């Protein structure tokens, strides 16, 4: 029997096809291989078509499809499950943007394109691929596919706090990598250590901030 509100196969097909660029983008970053990425997207959409009764009308179809894609990737393309590529826990990375000055950050941007300076933009794909997988996935889902923290948490099967932590660390690694590249290219000069310590960056849990604020107020 069909459930009320069930997507018909044709409606599903039309809506799912509109998500092809997003799915292929995520799949390519996961598999790092165009042919595997295409197979992964096809498997994902066939599974999703069969399981479309489970999709809740009114929720984000893209997030739902990406969740299936991630599960398919883990089960089929990475037998043995998703190993934790980076241990959760205290951040060992000493590089924080606390000591990058506003002037340096400004020099890394291209005011006309609203993007990074072209020389840095060409580096960002490589920097992204070198991120630990969990960080890379979180960054792509948030910055490229514009999923919410909750949706990313569902896709990655982890708490929202972990999503925030992965995003923060992934973005900071990217920024550090781009800063190094900018220095090597002579886009920015050497930076003197200023004021803030990396401790400033260590607080990423929004809940902690809110708790502090509630106590303080």
């Amino acid at each position, binding site marked *: 029997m069909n459930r009320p509100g069930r997507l018909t196969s044709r409606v599903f097909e039309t809506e799912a096809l509109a998500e092809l660029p997003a799915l292929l983008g995520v799949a390519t970053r996961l598999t790092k291989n165009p042919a595997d990425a295409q197979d992964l997207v096809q498997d994902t959409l066939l599974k999703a*078509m069969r399981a479309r009764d489970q999709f809740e009308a009114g929720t984000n179809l893209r997030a739902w499809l990406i969740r299936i894609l991630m599960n398919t990737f883990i089960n089929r393309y990475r037998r043995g499950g998703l190993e934790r590529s980076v241990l959760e826990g205290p951040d060992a990375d000493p590089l924080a943007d606390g000591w990058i000055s506003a002037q340096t950050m400004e020099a890394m941007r291209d005011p006309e394109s609203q993007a990074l300076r072209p020389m840095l933009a060409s580096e960002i794909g490589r920097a992204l691929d070198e991120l630990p997988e969990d960080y890379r996935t979180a960054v792509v889902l948030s*910055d490229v596919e514009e999923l919410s923290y909750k949706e990313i948490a569902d896709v990655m099967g982890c708490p929202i706090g972990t999503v925030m932590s992965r995003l923060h660390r992934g973005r900071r690694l990217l920024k550090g990598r781009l800063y190094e590249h900018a220095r090597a290219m002579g886009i920015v000069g050497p930076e003197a250590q200023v004021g803030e310590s990396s401790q400033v960056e260590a607080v990423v849990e929004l809940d902690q901030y809110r708790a502090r604020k509630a106590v303080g107020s």
Partner: protein
Amino acid sequence: MSTCRHFVPLLEPFRDGELSPSEVVDVETHLVECERCSERVRLAEAMRVSLKEVVRAGAPVTDSFEERIRLALSAEREREERREPAHEAQLRMLSWRSIVPIAAAAAVVLAYAASANNRTTDVASSRASMYQSSTPASVEKLLEDLVSNHEHSSPQYTEQSVLPQLESEVGVPVKLPNFKPFGASWEGLSVVPVSNQRAASLRYRIAGHRLTVYVYDAARVPVGSMLQQRVVRDEPVYVGSRHGVSIAATERRNGVGYLVATDLNKDESAELVASIY
């Protein structure tokens, strides 16, 4: 700096749209005062723009990939419809369950149908009862009948002036395709009766080859489910062949379906049907 210490943890959730409205106001107030935090936000935005560009450019959806996915999904849909023929497919099919075989078709000419003689309805409904469900077999039968009609019937009218009457019979606008660029010559038209509605059948000849164009209400004719999908001139076209007759069908945005039957090859048929608009 102590203020920055307070706000830095909020900058990412701020950009990600995860803060409450009052927190957004707090952050925006701070950004007006703090060049460094503003620059943090702008650099992060620039990274986001560049990331989007690099991820999209690194995984372009090519036409061939999109077509591969379409074919995979439509094959899955067919499998599903075979497993579960009762509901979804039936809704789409409504009353067009099969065209009536040729013996009945010969009896139904425009004037005859217009006279609302009950005998025709009886014949049609008794035949239609053979195809009560919208199974692949019934769609297959419909295709076979269209092909048989193409091969064996002759046009009932040669004057194009009967077109307006024909539209009221078929229930959709019937415009003559422009096949002149293909060197087609006009032969005539008929109404092809179906269980309880009709299609227009337009007959042409191209370099000695017979060509029939069926015009119908696409919502009621799911011929695509038994044919192969491809993209011609950026439009989806369904192609196949039965008994040496190639078939190509398409649907226009106004809901009018066109199906071409010829003894030309499938590519040529697909090209012909894609030229209709």
